[in-house]
């Protein structure tokens, strides 16, 4: 229920301009909210005199069946989809097929329509497209207003978000706006016999896994870190079905103002999240100068360089290279752990790598429990020897 307190309302009209769905009008210099209202809350936030309020009721369990379809939030920046989007579409396809319901992508931006084909090629049946100049770049307020409204109108059963910086900002804000449950950083998603979304995630610093349901509210919302699921092979023969949504955004409804965007080029050429090969460093390297050994090896392999939490905390390496629970989750073809003991918080960030190699002087180090190939010994001798041997083999092949 949305209510306008007529005594407080000054008839300023800000709500009319802020409404993404054209539901607010003025009549006798007072705000009137019409049937097009989706309860998205944009007017509540912009009203300077707090005259508009929304009373939300929890969804009636018997009405949960009205919510249908699996949605993937198609995060884009600078005209490119985040890599996690195709991973979510791959998983979303499986979930949608189990439910025998459609898989859709929801795309917000400005002039973003050309990304629709890509979304369909990666498994989507349909693309909901909301374009507006004010959606050119991400702001919490505009994206929350628009996405909440679209969800309320189209009633999907499941909405998946990538756990990127902005995904982890948007998902909880939308969840709180809609008063629905949200599960962070899922590593497993499935549909059970009751057609509910089963969300599995690490808990207690990755020491245990928990399976979580969202029984009472819809949509069921979850975030997933990049590199957790594999993308489906793209099929470019599918034709995009695009539903363009009529929306409006008043820039004044955006309460934050981005005055500058600074791009910091990472010191390392390849980011750990995207790399196929990673050489990762731990405390066993003893001092930051010794990172050179790992960098040499990485250069030989054309691999990215990562690190464990202790060395990032010690300032040897910037945070964006950190692998583990409080850093990045990676899933490369090859992960070489140099002097990393393998605390559980590290293991949860790299255990899905295809092949894990560990070099450590301590034969009891837990990293050896996950390593496909472990070398027990002095890494200061083994790492250079390995780099040499790889160079030798590579030059032989030429």
């Amino acid at each position: 229920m949305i209510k306008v307190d007529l005594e407080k309302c000054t008839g300023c009209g800000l709500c009319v301009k802020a409404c993404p769905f054209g539901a607010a009008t003025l009549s006798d210099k007072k705000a009137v909210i019409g049937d097009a209202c989706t309860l998205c809350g944009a007017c509540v936030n912009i009203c300077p005199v707090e005259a508009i309020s929304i009373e939300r009721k929890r969804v009636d369990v018997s009405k949960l069946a009205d919510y249908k379809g699996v949605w993937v939030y198609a995060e884009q920046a600078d005209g490119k989809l985040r890599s996690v989007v195709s991973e979510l579409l791959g998983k979303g396809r499986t979930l949608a097929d189990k439910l025998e319901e459609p898989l859709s992508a929801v795309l917000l931006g400005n002039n973003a329509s050309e990304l629709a084909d890509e979304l369909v090629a990666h498994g989507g049946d349909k693309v909901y497209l909301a374009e507006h100049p004010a959606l050119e770049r991400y702001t919490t307020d505009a994206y929350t207003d628009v996405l909440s409204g679209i969800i309320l109108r189209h009633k999907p059963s499941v909405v998946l978000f990538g756990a990127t910086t902005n995904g982890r900002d948007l998902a909880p804000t939308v969840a709180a706006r809609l008063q629905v449950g949200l599960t962070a950083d899922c590593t497993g998603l499935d549909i059970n016999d009751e057609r509910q979304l089963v969300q599995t995630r690490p808990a207690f610093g990755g020491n245990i896994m928990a399976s979580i349901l969202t029984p009472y509210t819809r949509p069921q919302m979850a975030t997933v870190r990049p590199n957790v699921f594999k993308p489906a092979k793209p099929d470019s023969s599918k034709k995009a079905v695009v539903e363009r949504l009529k929306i409006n955004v008043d820039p004044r409804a955006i309460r934050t103002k981005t005055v500058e965007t600074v791009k910091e080029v990472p010191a390392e050429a390849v980011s750990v999240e995207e790399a196929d090969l990673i050489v990762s460093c731990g405390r066993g390297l003893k001092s930051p100068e010794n990172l050179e050994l790992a960098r040499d090896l990485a250069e030989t392999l054309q691999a990215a360089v990562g690190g464990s939490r202790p060395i990032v905390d010690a300032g040897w390496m910037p945070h964006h290279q950190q692998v583990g629970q409080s850093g990045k989750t990676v899933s490369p073809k090859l992960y070489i752990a140099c002097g990393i003991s393998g605390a559980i918080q590290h293991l949860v960030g790299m255990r899905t790598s295809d092949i894990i190699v560990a070099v450590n002087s301590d034969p009891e180090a837990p990293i050896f429990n996950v390593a496909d190939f472990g070398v027990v010994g002095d890494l200061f001798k083994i790492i250079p020897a390995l780099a040499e041997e790889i160079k030798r083999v590579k030059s032989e092949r030429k």
Partner: protein
Amino acid sequence: MDIVVCIKQVPEITEVKIDPETRTLIRNGVPSIVNPFDEIAVEEAVRIKERVGATVTVVTMGPPQARDALLKCLAMGADKAVLITDRAFAGADTWATAYTLSQVIKKMSYDVVFCGKQAIDGDTAQVGPELAELLGIPHITYVRKVELHQDLKKVIIHRETDEGYDVVECKLPVLLTAIKGLNEPRLPSLMNILASNRKEIKTITVADIGGDPEQYGLAGSLTQVVEVFTPEPRGKGIKVDGSNPEDAAKQLVQFLFEKNLL
């Protein structure tokens, strides 16, 4: 200026071990600490207080022993503390936690609400944005620099992004979530630790907040944990002795070659 900082007492997870026999958590003897990101939030609030003058109130929801975490924050320079504690609050998910905090904080005076980016035990990073939404105020996550405009009515924030950072301005009130790199939290002096015992810690129970008890704790949670299990171990791999580095390197390169990785 009034600053509210939300903190959580968490187990020092790097100390948590798994019993190899039963594959369950060994919780005995695991020390409790103030969530490190929350400590950064407290530090930033105290620094603002030292620069421009402010009253800093730390708020936590937790068991009675979470009082220790509040004492630490008071020793760091916070002025007042609120302990929201009641068995009715137990088992809360992020929604129920944010809801409970919002019910308490909306009755307080605040210009800035600080949270840590996330707690190191749950790692969800959800409570901050959910709380802001329930309070009806804007928020900025992943904050690594805070500047106050000289009129004290606006903040200028450096917000970390996946590519670098954005400079974001916002009028107060605002909720900010702190990341590493915002500051280095201080170690409280012995004097301040002693003085913290004289500061006020207010206790709030479900009866004090009022409202429907079904909204709080496990009953009010929108997500429900239905199963907990330990992750599957990976299969055993090859382990070689590296006392002859050249020899070990040869074996490893052969292995990588077979796996088509070179």
